[in-house]
């Protein structure tokens, strides 16, 4: 029996949360999630792939059916010519090595970084991991203007790693407000194992 999650009309992160729950309950059984926005399509697909599910995408009018399966079912859909199978992708990592976006004008760089992190909640695909190093760690501590945005990302399953050495250097280790304090082993492995690294 295929379990159906009708996530049409639901705002982020509801489609991801409902699908995640259905996948856990389904065990090895297939799950179909119905979405009606490209953002939900991308975010649900990414989450499912990350959890080891195959994703077959089928468009039906305004809705998109995401057929999630362990093995086989996606291939059957493909054979029937009904769907395309998304390629497996490595994690999408955003590497933030400064508390500003770009160089040259500090005040402008502040605004741009705030705008960038806010916008990550509104565009697709959702990154898997955000890595904060050097002055970037100032964004994850108490008083940071982007905590609310980072919390929304974290609620959708985005991992947030902050460089422990960096926090220690700027004497903000005690003020971490979000994410996991991490070391260079984790950070290096995250970067090397990424499908794509984006540096704003």
């Amino acid at each position, binding site marked *: 029996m295929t379990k159906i999650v009708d996530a049409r009309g639901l705002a982020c992160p509801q489609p991801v949360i409902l699908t995640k729950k259905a996948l856990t309950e389904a065990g090895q059984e297939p799950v179909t999630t119905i979405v009606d926005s490209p953002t939900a399509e991308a975010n649900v697909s990414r989450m499912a792939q990350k959890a080891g599910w195959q994703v077959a995408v089928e468009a039906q009018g305004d809705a998109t059916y995401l057929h999630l399966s362990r093995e086989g079912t996606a291939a059957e859909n493909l054979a029937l010519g009904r769907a395309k199978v998304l390629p497996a992708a490595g994690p999408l990592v955003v590497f933030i090595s400064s508390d500003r976006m770009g160089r040259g004008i500090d005040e402008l760089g502040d605004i741009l970084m705030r705008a960038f992190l806010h916008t990550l909640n509104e565009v697709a695909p959702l990154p898997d991991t955000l890595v904060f190093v050097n002055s970037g760690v100032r964004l994850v501590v108490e008083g940071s203007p982007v905590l*609310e945005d980072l919390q929304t990302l974290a609620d959708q399953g985005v991992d947030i790693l902050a460089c422990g050495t960096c926090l220690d250097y700027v004497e903000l280790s005690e003020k971490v407000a979000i994410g996991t304090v991490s070391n260079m082993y984790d950070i290096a492995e995250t970067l090397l194992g990424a499908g794509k690294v984006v540096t704003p």
Partner: protein
Amino acid sequence: MPENKTVEYGVVLFRSVSHALRGERVTQEAGLKVKLIPVPRQFSSNCGTALRFLWPDEVAVRLALEEARMEVEAIHRLE
């Protein structure tokens, strides 16, 4: 997606980024909960930065900006 679905927001559009920054400062000084965000796609503005506020604070936001003699391009409710 913007934080809480039940919270209603409005945005102030300004003519320039420096106006937006000043707008943020004066409204924060007035004790209002505001946030600089990229101008939402449905609006157009030469300046890419807008000031988001809680819609129930609309009058207080207008007042704070007026008192600081700040020109605004537009104020919209965010749907």
